């Protein structure tokens, strides 16, 4: 009963605000259906919302993020970003270059390149002109406090700096949605809080929607919505 009321409320809200990401009856399994991870997920993200996806390991949080980012395809159902269906075979480049940005638990930066070069990779892939790319890089570096580290190689950076670099890289092409998979999972508590605060601050400033998978209930509480994943479905537990 409560669930239906929440869904109705969500739909009402959706009619007023722009939906940037929508998942409808999404199913996903592995090993030829032996391991069912997602069992009919319905989900919407409103422009500018911050959403935390919580749940135990293996519950399908990362899988859901991958589906949202077009890195994988659902067995059944539909995922759309800004009204365009996400498909890992079609429109993928447009999606990855302009619509979504990824931040992973491990920073996944290229260690031999400098911070600056790592951040410029998405702009190069998208064909952004050098001047605009540099301006954007300096803007983000200033916000994340990395300006003095631009020419440094990744090996020389601390864990927190690396994760902030990964955040800059994800935002370089001004995506509409930021998909963060345990973005602070590899950091100590102090760094973790710092990076998370920065993450929330930047997505708010940029007007980017955030979908973050996390184990950390404390961090999840900082998001506008907190969703619990259980039995392959999403259960909304808190909405600010």
């Amino acid at each position, binding site marked *: 009963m409560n669930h239906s009321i929440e869904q109705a409320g969500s739909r009402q809200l959706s009619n007023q605000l722009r939906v940037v990401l929508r998942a409808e009856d999404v199913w996903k399994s592995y090993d030829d259906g032996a391991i069912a991870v997602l069992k009919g997920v319905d989900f919407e993200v409103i422009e500018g919302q911050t959403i935390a996806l919580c749940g135990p390991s293996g519950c399908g949080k990362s899988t859901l993020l991958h589906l949202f980012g077009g*890195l994988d395809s659902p067995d059944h159902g539909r995922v759309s970003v800004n009204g365009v269906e996400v498909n890992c075979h079609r429109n993928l480049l447009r999606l990855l*270059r302009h619509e979504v940005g990824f931040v992973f638990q491990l920073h996944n*930066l*290229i260690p031999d390149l400098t911070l600056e070069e790592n951040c410029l*990779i*998405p702009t190069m892939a998208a064909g952004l002109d050098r001047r605009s790319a540099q301006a954007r890089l300096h803007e983000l570096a200033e916000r994340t406090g990395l300006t003095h580290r631009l020419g440094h190689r990744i090996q020389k950076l601390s864990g927190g700096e690396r994760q902030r670099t990964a955040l800059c890289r994800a935002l370089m092409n001004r995506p509409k949605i930021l998909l963060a998979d345990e973005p602070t999972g590899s950091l100590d508590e102090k760094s973790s809080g710092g990076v998370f605060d920065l993450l929330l601050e930047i997505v708010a400033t940029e007007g980017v929607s955030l979908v973050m998978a996390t184990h950390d209930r404390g961090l999840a509480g900082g998001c506008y919505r907190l969703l619990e994943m259980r039995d392959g479905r999403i259960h909304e537990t808190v909405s600010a």
Partner: protein
Amino acid sequence: MIFLKLILTNLRRHRIRSLISVAGIAFSVAAMLTVVTILQGAIGMFSGILSSDSEIIVFERNVSDLFFSDVPAAAVDEIASWPMVSHADPVLFGIVSSADHPIITCFGVTGSDARIRKATWLEGDRNNFARHSDDVVLGQRAAEFLRAKLGDHVPIGHGIFHVIGILRTANGFEDGGVFMPLSSAQSFFHKQGSSSVITIKLRGKDDAEAFKSAVKARFASLIALEDAEFTRSYSQFKILKATAWAVGGCGLLLGGFGVANTMIMSVFTRIREIAILRVCGFSHLQIAAMIFGESAVVSFAGAVLGLLTGSCLLYALKLVPALHGYVDVTLHPVVMLIVILLALITGIAGALYPAAYAMRIRAVEALRFE
């Protein structure tokens, strides 16, 4: 710039592996350059023998090797009498041997032949040529390896010959050869009354077509070709050229396998990195271009190093006394360009499978595993 850095970064990461690949291509290129240049030089020298002060060569039609060509003396006499002909020199080629030297090229020529007239005579008098049937003139290098001096009697083949002169020419074959009076050579090689070829100098160069037509009309068994035509069409030259390129090609193929191995390893060791590039928006083509770029850098570096190594090797061969005059180390730009192009094509071919593999990497699978 970052794209280039991505290419170079990976090569720098595995320096030893990259250097081995570059060395593989370099040795292949050096081998190809050396073999092709030496054979081109040999062909050039042989062509030089035929075209010495002449524009046209007449020989027996449809023979695969000039050593088997039989041009009758009557044809020589008749052709020499044609008004368009300035001079016609019959030459009989033969191969003889002596102790320690299994192959010595022998030229049966007349005293008026340009090879005798225009060579630098180090010893002896060119006017004495062909006075006696057992007279021979030695090329400078032949005199060295036969340890013969002016006036000596040297065993060549089944005969003993009197050295009446030693001459020097720029042509390795001639410099290592023996010049006999035509009649002596005919007798020695049991080819009385015939020669292998007639080298022709015409009064006017415009007469070439008319001369060729006249030979065709008058002597059904003979063919006349201009020097350039002969070099292009002579089957022995074609075989030599094909062999040179085939040997060099095999070398490059091996180098290509080396590049393929390196590139496969390169892709396997950075699957996760390629996945990240995909997540950052790299297209399949951009991923492939990165792999091809890497192999192109390896191939180009190998080609340049190979050209340098090959050039040094050729220069060193030229300095070997035993090969003096036989190795023409003139590097033809066309050959160098072809060798570089082949090296690049080989490198790119070697990167085909690795690039296809890299394009197929699924980011979601690569990211799932640490």
